[in-house]
């Protein structure tokens, strides 16, 4: 008997403007011990399927057709009570947005312990021991101390791992993992995937793995289902689907997977669905101030910046424990270049970005922009500097004001800087939303009505709307499927080319980094261990950690336009 069967599932979001069909007649079956990959376009309805199985569709979403069966019993019509008894114990889910999935007011340990104790008959101390063990197994160092910390003290990737730990701790039969490794560097990603594979193998757990990372799909899954705009377009054994895709969408998707080995001028674009296949950058670049400085001249000079956080609260300052997140990092970003920052999850990449943006005061070191000191103090950074820079946050959702409509969010910077107003502004917003693949009609919605990847694109649109000269991208495309990712990255490249836009590009996706960046810095444990030209780094890494990282890069051999051979 199949563990989980989804038949003809249709999910609708009735709003007053339209009734949006997020999932249409979807089929999916998970057998015990099987890892079922779910890929597809951003906004295709992957997360919605997961939420529907859990009975946790965000209102006003509801299942309007089809059945979901768990071990042969229908669960789609169950009442709240019965559903609640299934959750966690039988089926658990890792939500896509790890940063908002954790209650900010409870320590990670508390949340783990309560979940464990809700399902397993364990004492407080046993549960805690188990929690620490789990934290350790998902690769978070110093687990014993970490359990007493609050979610906001964790890096993006660490929070994602905590969410994974939370989903696994109750020993469920089915795990729905929605992009569980987006924010993780390759080595940790491998570790997590091994963990999941182990569970499938040993405990016969059925897994639905939602991801946009074709490498992960190839590596991990047994079966794969491809979705496009709410519909299942193709399904079958992974090797078959990836190796010989039958549906045009699948084909174009595979074609868009970034090449890890060769540097291309632009990412290949999909021509399926016929939306955006390149456009004149001139539109976007209209009245965008061209960078004045000379290309190649140092723009941002970072000298020995450090950041430490209080890790142990104490009444006396001398008793406090500190944790050094960034340990005197120095590097220079040149005018018009894309500087990549890669490294271990939790190694301080976001912290560096935030210090440069002036969101964290530095605990040491200086930041200069165009030769002027812009080091962040507790009062932030100078106003003029703020106008020059922009940042795409790692967590797209919490960086969007939940009470503002998307068009207001995107229009705000332009309106604020007095760039445009009235109809011109509305047109610009519509254009931006269109460029990132959302469509102008998305403007009237609120952030919570979007899928993970769509939210990320809103945040990109907003960043572009300010027309910055220096753009900090913290994992800008982690939640995007490869086709949309390619589209976005091409825009960034165009901007770089045409306007000399300078970027700090944080990513764990090494193929993307290779395509995007001119130079790359590698971080580990708060230290910048290596900085080099991209090609040099990829071809001849110096530092052992860099070498280790590169060796773990998923190898998708035989990548062709038609499909790819699974290693």
């Amino acid at each position, binding site marked *: 008997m199949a563990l989980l069967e989804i038949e003809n599932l249709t999910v609708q979001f009735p709003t007053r403007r339209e009734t949006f069909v997020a999932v249409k007649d979807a089929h999916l079956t998970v057998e015990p011990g099987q890892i079922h990959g779910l890929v597809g376009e951003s906004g295709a309805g992957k997360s919605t399927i997961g939420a529907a199985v859990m009975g946790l569709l965000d*209102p006003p979403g509801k299942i309007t057709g089809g059945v979901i069966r768990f071990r042969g019993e229908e669960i789609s019509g169950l009442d709240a009570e019965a559903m*609640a008894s299934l959750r966690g114990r039988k089926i658990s889910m890792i939500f896509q947005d790890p940063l908002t999935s954790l209650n900010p*007011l*409870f320590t990670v340990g508390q949340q783990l312990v*309560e979940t464990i104790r809700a399902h397993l008959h364990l004492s407080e101390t046993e549960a805690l021991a188990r929690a620490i063990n789990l934290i350790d197994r998902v690769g978070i160092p110093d687990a014993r101390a970490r359990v007493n910390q609050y979610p906001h003290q964790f890096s993006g990737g660490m929070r994602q791992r905590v*969410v994974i730990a939370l989903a696994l701790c109750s020993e469920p039969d089915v795990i729905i993992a929605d992009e569980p490794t987006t924010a993780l560097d390759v080595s940790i990603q491998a570790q997590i995937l091994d963990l999941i594979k182990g569970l499938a193998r040993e405990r016969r757990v059925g897994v639905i793995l939602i991801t946009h990372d074709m490498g992960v799909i190839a590596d991990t899954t047994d079966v794969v289902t491809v979705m496009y705009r709410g519909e299942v377009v193709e399904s079958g054994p992974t090797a078959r689907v990836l190796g010989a895709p039958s549906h045009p969408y699948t084909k174009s998707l595979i074609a868009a997977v970034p090449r890890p080995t060769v540097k291309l001028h632009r990412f290949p674009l999909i021509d399926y669905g016929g939306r955006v296949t390149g456009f004149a950058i001139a539109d976007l670049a209209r009245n965008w101030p061209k960078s004045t400085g000379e290309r190649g001249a140092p723009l941002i000079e970072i000298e020995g910046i450090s950041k430490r956080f209080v890790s142990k609260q104490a009444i006396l300052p001398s008793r406090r424990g500190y944790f050094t997140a960034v340990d005197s990092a120095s590097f220079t970003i040149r005018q018009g270049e894309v500087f990549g920052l890669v490294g271990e999850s939790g190694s301080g990449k976001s912290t560096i970005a935030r210090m440069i943006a002036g969101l964290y005061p530095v605990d040491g070191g200086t930041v200069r922009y165009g030769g002027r000191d812009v080091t962040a103090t507790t009062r932030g950074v100078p106003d003029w500097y703020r106008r020059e820079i922009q940042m795409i946050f790692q967590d797209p959702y919490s960086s969007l004001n939940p009470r503002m409509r998307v068009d207001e969010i995107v229009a705000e910077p332009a309106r604020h800087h007095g760039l445009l107003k009235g109809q011109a502004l509305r047109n610009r917003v519509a254009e931006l939303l269109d460029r990132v693949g959302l469509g102008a009609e998305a403007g009237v919605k609120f952030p919570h009505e979007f899928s993970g990847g769509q939210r990320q694109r809103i945040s990109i649109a907003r960043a572009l709307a300010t027309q910055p000269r220096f753009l900090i991208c913290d994992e800008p495309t982690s939640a995007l499927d490869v086709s949309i990712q390619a589209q976005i990255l091409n825009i960034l490249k165009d901007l770089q080319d045409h306007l000399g836009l300078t970027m700090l590009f944080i990513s764990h996706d090494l193929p993307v980094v290779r395509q995007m960046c001119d130079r790359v810095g590698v971080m580990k444990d708060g230290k910048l261990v290596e900085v080099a030209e991209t090609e040099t780094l990829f071809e001849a890494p110096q530092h052992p950690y860099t070498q280790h990282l590169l060796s773990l890069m998923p190898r998708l051999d035989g990548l062709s336009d038609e499909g790819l051979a699974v290693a």
Partner: protein
Amino acid sequence: MVSYIFRRILQSVLVLLVVGLVAFAMFRFVGDPVDTMLGQERTVQDIERLRESLGLNDPFFVQYWNFLGRALQGDLGISYRQGRPVAEIIAERLPATLELAAVSGTFALLMGIGLGVFTAIRRHGFSANAIMALSLIGVSLPTFLIGILLIYLFAVELRWLPSFGRGETVMVGGWSTGFLTQSGLIALILPSITLGLYQMTLIMRLVRSEMLEVMRQDYIRFARARGLSQRAIHFRHALKNTLVPVITVTGLQLGSIIAFAIITETVFQWPGVGLLFINAIQFVDIPVMAAYLMLISVMFVGINLIVDLLYVAIDPRLRS
């Protein structure tokens, strides 16, 4: 932390000084105590003599200065109305008010939170909406009216509960408590309901509105996905996230219950500080008013300090 509290205490001293100054500037407008202190057969000399001996002819800041000087030596003066040391009077009256405040505060908090969570969970349910509407009666009718209606129903018609007073009290080390006798406990019922009704409604509505917001957050959804019990989700996860405004308001309300439960105490002839204060205003009993306002100020400063510390205790993001 220690330095924060220390700084706050220093600031409180400043607050206290300002309160005193404002208070003494204000007393001129409350009236003239001399008229209430002297019988109708007083002469102009009597008035003058009394004014002089009470120091009422001095400018207010001089009066204030003298008050401060004496207060620093622990002397809060003699009540004009009762002719007894103010400190003694306040000490006598405080237990009644504190006990009433404790009971009605607890009532308001428990009911307010319970009903608030309930009405938030059953947002569209009939009973939740009925509770929401009914609770408004408590805040749109004057306290006085509610008190009197309760008295008439439960004391006059049904004769279940006493109409006034604290019942029998027992002295426990200088503290007169009504908690230890049956009549004392019974006497607490009506006043605490009257007093707590407003706070209950306020807390309930606050909890509800904050809960509605929190219940849609992703972490609540994830808490459900983790299979936590409804109780844990509502009362642990959701509730805690609503607490910042709730404790703010609760703190302030508790403060004003203690400080200005004037109407309830008058209606129920509850011998607390609220009654004392209204009498002091009527009588222009400056020493009582001054000492009392100082006390209130200390109390509010204390409550607000606790509230501010609670913020940090509740929300780790504020610790930095």
